[in-house]
C-alpha cells in the first residue's frame, strides 16, 4: 500500500467519544451514552510537538485510546496518515499503528514481570515477523536511552522507576516510529529523575525528529517539550496555540487557574 505523503500524521475530525453504560434505576432498561469528549478536532503534523493538558478526569487518556485505535468514537473520524483507522480491517490498522510509539503512564504496570527486558524490547519486531534478532539495534537503543547494557538480561522488578520508563521509551523507539505518544511520562517519578526523562525526550527529538504527542497535567513539563499546547476542559478543547502564546496569554479558565497557581508559588518564593 503506497503511503500518501501528508503533513498531518494524526488528524481527528469532530470526534465524540465515550462509553455505554447502564444508568441506575428505571433507566437501566436502555443503555445510555456517557460522553467523555465531544467535538474534538486535532491535528498533529510531522515533527511537531503537541502537548495536551487538562485536569485529571478530563479525558486526556481517553483521547489517547481513541488515537491508538483502542476505542471507537461515537461520531467523527480518526485519521493516521490520511487513513481512517476505524474503517480499516484489523490487519491494515495494525500496520498503520506500528508507526506510533506509545509510552504508557505507569512504568510499574507497563512491563510484563515475567519477561526479560530483551524480550520486551524485541516484541514489536517479533510482531512484524522479523525473526532475525537484531542485537546491535537493540543495544544501541538501550545506550541511547541511557540504560546500561546488562539491563537486557534483567527482569522488570530489578529496575527502578526511572529505568523502567527509559525501557518503555526504548521499546517505543524500536519500530522507528514517526510519532511518539507519551502519557504523563513523569508523574510516577521522583523529581530528580523527572529531569532526566525530560532531557531524554528532547534528545530523542533532536535526533530523530518524530512528532510528539504528550499528555500531562503538569504545565512546567509542557513548556519543556512542546511547540503547541492543546487545553481540554469540560469535555472539549477550549484553547489551542503555540506554547509561549498560551502560557503568556491564557484564555481558558483552566489555563488561567493553572498559571496563576504556578506564578503564585514562584512570586512568593522570589
Amino acid at each position, binding site marked *: 500500500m503506497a503511503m500518501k505523503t501528508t503533513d498531518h500524521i494524526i488528524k481527528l475530525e469532530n470526534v465524540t467519544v465515550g462509553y455505554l453504560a447502564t444508568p441506575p434505576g428505571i433507566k437501566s432498561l436502555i443503555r445510555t451514552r456517557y460522553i467523555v469528549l465531544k467535538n474534538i478536532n486535532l491535528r498533529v503534523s510531522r515533527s511537531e510537538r503537541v502537548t495536551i493538558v487538562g485536569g485529571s478526569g478530563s479525558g486526556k487518556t481517553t483521547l489517547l485510546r481513541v488515537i491508538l485505535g483502542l476505542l471507537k468514537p461515537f461520531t467523527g473520524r480518526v485519521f493516521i496518515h490520511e487513513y481512517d483507522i476505524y474503517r480499516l480491517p484489523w490487519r491494515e490498522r495494525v500496520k498503520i499503528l*506500528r508507526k506510533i510509539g506509545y509510552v504508557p503512564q505507569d512504568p510499574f504496570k507497563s512491563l510484563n514481570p515475567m519477561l526479560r527486558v530483551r524480550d520486551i524490547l524485541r*516484541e514489536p519486531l517479533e510482531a512484524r515477523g522479523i525473526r532475525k534478532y537484531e542485537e546491535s539495534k537493540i543495544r544501541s537503543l538501550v545506550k541511547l536511552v541511557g540504560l546500561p547494557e546488562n539491563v537486557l538480561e534483567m527482569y522488570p522488578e530489578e529496575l527502578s522507576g526511572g529505568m523502567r520508563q527509559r525501557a518503555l521509551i526504548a521499546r517505543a523507539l524500536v519500530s522507528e516510529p514517526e510519532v511518539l505518544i507519551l502519557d504523563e511520562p513523569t508523574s510516577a517519578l521522583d523529581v530528580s529523575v523527572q529531569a532526566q526523562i525530560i532531557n531524554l525526550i528532547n534528545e530523542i527529538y533532536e535526533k530523530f525528529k518524530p512528532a510528539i504527542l504528550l499528555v500531562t497535567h503538569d504545565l512546567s513539563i509542557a513548556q519543556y517539550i512542546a511547540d503547541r499546547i492543546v487545553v481540554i476542559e469540560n469535555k472539549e478543547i477550549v484553547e489551542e496555540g503555540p506554547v509561549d502564546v498560551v502560557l503568556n496569554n491564557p484564555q481558558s479558565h483552566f489555563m488561567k487557574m493553572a498559571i496563576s497557581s504556578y506564578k503564585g508559588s514562584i512570586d512568593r518564593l522570589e
Partner: protein
Amino acid sequence: MIQRLSTTLNRSFKKTRFKIGLAISLLVIFLAIFAPYIVPRPQEGLGYVPYDAEAKKLLPPSTEYLFGTDLLGRDLFSRVIMGARTALLQVSIVVIVSLLLGLLLGVMAAYFKGLIEVLLNYFTEIFMAMPTIVIALVLRLTLGHGIHVTALSLILTWWAWYARISYVYARGVVELDYVILAKLAGLHSFKIIYRHVILNIIQPLIVQAITDLGSVLLEAAAINFLGLGVQPGYPEWGVILYEGVFYGGGVEVFTRAPWLIVFPGLFLLLTTLGFSLLGDCLREEIDPQLRRRWHLWF
C-alpha cells in the same frame, strides 16, 4: 508481585509445615509409582481373590497381613498401598484437565469479551450449582462402573471453578499496559494471551490447584464410597470403605473389623493433609497480604 519460582520454594523450605507436607506427598507419590513392586500380594491388591479365601476372611492385622484382610480374604495392606496409585491418578488427571480447560476458557473470555464472556459466566454458574454427586449418578447410569465415571464427574464440576478463577485473574491483567502495547505492536492474539496473560496468572493458579488436590481426593473417594464410581474390589480407598461399611454389616464393622475402616481412612486423611499443607505454605508465599507475618510481632 511475581516472584521467581526459586525464591518461593526457598522460602517455603524454611517452614516445618512445608517439609511435613512435602514429605507426605512425596511418600504418596513414591507408593503410587512403586506399589506393585513393594506390595506382598499385588494380585490381591488389584482385587483378585486368593485361592484359600474362606480361611482368610476378615483376619485382623498381624505380621503376615499388616493391615489384616478384607471380607473376601484379600490382603488389605496390598489393596491400600495400591490405592495410592489410584488416588494419585484420579487426582492428577482431574486437576490437570480441569485446570487446562478452565484456564483456556476463562482467559479467552476475559480477553475477547463479548459473547464468549457471557457464555462462560452463564455456563460456569450452571455447572457450579450442580452437585457433583448428581452428575456422578447420571454418569454412572449412562456409562456404567469405572474410574472414568469418577474422573469425569469431577472434571465436569471443577472446570467451572478454574474457569472462574482464571477469568477473574485474567481480567485483572488484560487491562494492563503491557497487553495494550502488545496489541498495538500487532502481536497475534494467542501469543499475547500466552505470553502476557497466562504466564502472569499461572503461578497463583498452580498454587490453587495444589491446594485443591486434597479436596478433589476426598470428593473422588466420596463418589467411590457411594458406589457411583469404581466397583468393589478395585484398589481405591473410598471403595474399600464402602465395602467395609456396606458389606461388612453396617455399623458393626467398627467393632467387628475396624481395620477395614481405619487404614483406608488414615491414608485418605494423611494424603489430604500432605497436599493441603503444601498448598497452604505455597499460597502464603505468593499472597503478599498474608506475608505481613503475624508471627513476627514478638
